[in-house]
């Protein structure tokens, strides 16, 4: 499974989101490739990914993509990430 973590710049928030998503995926036993991307790269990557992880503001900026867009409010709340990823994968 391909997952893209999106932020505006691709160096800060998306990297943190990627790290926490990988922790959650490992715990759930889901085999997935998580890529951190800035908005420009993400528009392309989101065409082939199954899931996009991002924040409310950036989801609006990203617009319509074929991937399922999951909005994370607290990037350090592993329970929130677990809950939303589980729901998306099922």
């Amino acid at each position, binding site marked *: 499974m391909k997952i893209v973590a999106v932020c*505006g*710049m691709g160096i800060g*928030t998306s990297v*943190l989101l990627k790290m*926490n998503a990988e922790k959650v995926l490992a715990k759930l036993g889901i085999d997935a490739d998580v890529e951190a991307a*800035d908005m420009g790269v993400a528009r392309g990557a989101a065409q082939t990914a199954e899931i996009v992880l991002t924040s*409310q*503001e950036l989801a609006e900026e990203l617009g319509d993509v074929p991937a399922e867009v999951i909005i994370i409010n607290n990037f*350090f709340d592993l329970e929130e990430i677990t809950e939303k990823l589980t729901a998306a994968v099922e």
Partner: protein
Amino acid sequence: MAFNLAEALSSIVTQADAADWRAAIRLAGDGLVLGGATTDAYTDEMIDAVEKHGPYIVIAPGIALAHSRPSPAVLTGGLSWVSLATPVEFGNKANDPVNLVIGLAAVDHDAHLTVMRALAGVLADSSAMERLTAATSPDDVRAVLRGLASVA
């Protein structure tokens, strides 16, 4: 070698006063400049990023990760820490108001991953965060950080 976030912080300011989110980011930018990581232009780039993409840098309740992309204004990787005496609204519905601004500068997309891993570990530790945001001096902040497990 074990790596602790305390060593990565090029500057720490505690209980600072900021009138609004721009002033708060400017303090974090000043810290990066003082630490020799960036020029003043990077501070403007961090503010522009929020104007362009919105307050998404408020990544958890009370915490903003101010940053922009690698640019000529970044001299070397750096991290600055600014806790605020009075929380400031960034316009982020889920996570406002902000009482901690972390300024991040990176020279490329990979060099700072060890720092980010250490930062992720600290920000996810809610009891440490309580002590860190309450800290009243840079030495306090470093002492709390040094008391936490290091990232290998």
